[in-house]
């Protein structure tokens, strides 16, 4: 079994001309973990991956792989293997030669490398297609070949650049499960770049949310979802209502947040009076009930209702929020249905209000 490497990114920056793609990020990815870089396009996640792989120069900082500083190493000497977004299989070679490519570059004899490649293809259940060219394969099959090609070098870390983005939704979910299984059985470090929070949640041991070249939050999926560190993370992960306001008073660790429209909400946090603050409220924790505490709810007008099967999504306008989302179970909804234009009371518990910080600069 190949050994896994810890990846240590220390104050790494990437500058293209005048624009900064990655801005002094630091991150430790534990050996043998499945790490997902998550963020919108242009957030620097792919640049970071390419710097780990060695396909992009590092402007400042260092990258360590399992104790060795690899900043100036060429890709092949780093002990990493990369799987490209479009898989980048060689169109002029059959699958065996594609997989055997890196062995050929090392000068391994033809029969030996082909035998080893076939073994790898068998592991990926692609041996039946060994004599085919990549263009004769479906997207999922191409992905397996790309995996076989990447893994034949026994890498300590596998780097995947949006590996599932080229697949149709159904296949995406299947290949996702295969990736996870593969990572578990190989035990090596996987670094996976994606813009889908669902994908990251399903796969990762460690989610790294990036925005504008910075890391907004790096934590386990559950932490990222339940305790999003910033308003960006809360919005990007979805299922959160974000309310922005200013701190007006603090009492016993309870902060009062007043939105520009005048309504005040409560959150358990430490803050300074007068400072701007964002709070997050999970959409599925909001109830359609009147509350005694005015600062743990508000009155609004229903602007839209979406039926989703097991749940119903209700959009509400009120308290300065244009699109406050409430998700309730279908049972609760049909017991007391509401219609667009109805006035409703919303409420939630103090524990469900999450204070959202800003990125620590």
């Amino acid at each position: 079994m190949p050994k896994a490497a810890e990846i240590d990114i220390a104050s790494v920056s990437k500058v293209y001309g005048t624009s900064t793609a990655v801005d002094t990020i630091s991150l430790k990815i534990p050996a043998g973990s499945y790490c997902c870089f998550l963020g919108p396009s242009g957030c620097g996640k792919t640049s970071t991956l390419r710097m780990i792989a060695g396909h992009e120069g590092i402007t400042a900082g260092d990258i360590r792989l399992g104790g060795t500083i690899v900043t100036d190493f060429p890709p092949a000497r780093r002990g990493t293997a990369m799987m490209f977004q479009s898989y980048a299989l060689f169109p002029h070679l059959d699958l065996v030669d594609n997989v055997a490519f890196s062995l050929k570059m090392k000068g391994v004899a033809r029969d030996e490398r082909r035998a080893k490649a076939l073994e790898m293809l068998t592991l990926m259940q692609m041996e039946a297609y060994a004599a085919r060219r990549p263009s004769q394969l479906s997207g999922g099959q191409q992905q397996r070949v790309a995996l076989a090609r990447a893994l034949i070098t026994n890498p300590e870390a596998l780097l995947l650049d949006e590996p599932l983005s080229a697949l149709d939704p159904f296949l995406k979910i299947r290949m996702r499960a295969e990736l996870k299984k593969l990572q578990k059985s190989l035990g090596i470090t996987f670094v996976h770049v994606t813009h889908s929070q669902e994908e990251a949640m399903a796969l990762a041991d460690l989610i790294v949310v990036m925005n504008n070249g910075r890391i907004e939050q790096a934590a386990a999926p559950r932490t990222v979802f339940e305790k999003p560190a910033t308003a960006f993370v809360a919005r990007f992960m979805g299922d959160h209502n974000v309310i922005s306001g200013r701190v007006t008073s603090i009492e016993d660790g309870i902060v009062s947040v007043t939105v520009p429209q005048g309504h005040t909400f409560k959150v358990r946090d430490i803050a300074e009076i007068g400072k701007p603050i964002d709070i997050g409220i999970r959409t599925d924790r909001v109830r359609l009930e009147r509350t005694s505490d005015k600062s743990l709810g508000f009155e609004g007008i229903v602007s839209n209702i979406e039926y989703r099967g097991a749940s119903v999504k209700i959009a509400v306008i009120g308290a300065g929020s244009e699109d406050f989302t409430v998700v309730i179970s279908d049972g609760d909804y049909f017991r007391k249905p509401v219609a667009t234009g109805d006035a409703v009371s919303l409420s939630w518990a103090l524990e469900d209000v999450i204070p959202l910080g800003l990125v620590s600069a």
Partner: protein
Amino acid sequence: MRVRHESSLPLREGWGGVFRLLLHHRGFRNLPEGRQMAMIASTEPNERIGRGRSRGLRLPFAAICYLQATPLLLILGFFFILPILMIIVVSFWDYDFAGLYPDFLTMNYTDTLGSWVTWKTYLNTLKFTVLTWALTLVIGFGVAYFLAFHIRTTTMQMVLFLVCTVPFLTSNIVRMISWIPVLGRNGLVNSALIKLGIVPEPIEWLLYSDFAVVLALVHLNTLFMVTPIFNTLMRIDRSLIEAARDCGASDWQVLWNVILPLAKPGMAIGSIFVVTLVMADFSTVQVMSGGQSASVALMMKNQMSLLQYPAAAANAVVLLFVVLLMVAAILRVVDIRKEL
């Protein structure tokens, strides 16, 4: 290609009769290209034209399709198929110093193929072709590789590519003749070498030699290699090169294992251009060898000057056959269909 030929048309016309023009211009120079076009455009309509017309009234759509294909069919029929058929027919005619006599004789072919001079001339032409092909391939790939992989911005790539085409703004003949003051006995090269004291007296083989012929042929034809190769290189997905590097390939290994195999179709198309152009060349060989070297087309030109049209036609059919064989061989080695 086409534009260049058309622009040099009046010049050629001044050199000989219309028949010769058709022979060289249509029959040989444009043959592979024309043939491909004919195949693409007219195989199906040709086969089904009868049925299509009779069904035309009931099936207006089919009629419209055939109608659309008609102009090209007419143009190719009149200017490509008809001339070739004429050449083939005339190649079986009899002739003497005064006229042509319709007949069916194989004499022209037995004379051509039975002659020691023909074989020697073919060998000489093949020698020029192979040398020119090899040199244009190496130079053309080098230039295309530099343009595609070492020039970073697309604008600069286009600018430099256009610079490559600048010599083509003048005609073949002018470009060829301009070598004479460079290579001549008292030309630029010789006088420079003598002044620098490198050689005591002018080098004779610079001009009016096989060297001069190959030099001019390479000069005239390299761009035909650069263009298609550049085109295929530009289409190579850059992530393939990164993938190769990720697999530990060195620069040379990337070139040998990824770029060269993927550039093969462009190299094949360029080779077809160069091989057909050089095989049918007569002016370069005549001017640059000073009449000391022969090529097949030059042999035909001489036959026509002696009004031996049927002999020239037979020769032309043989050359056509040889060139088609060469093109077929190239296409057998490399599958260019994906490129078209």
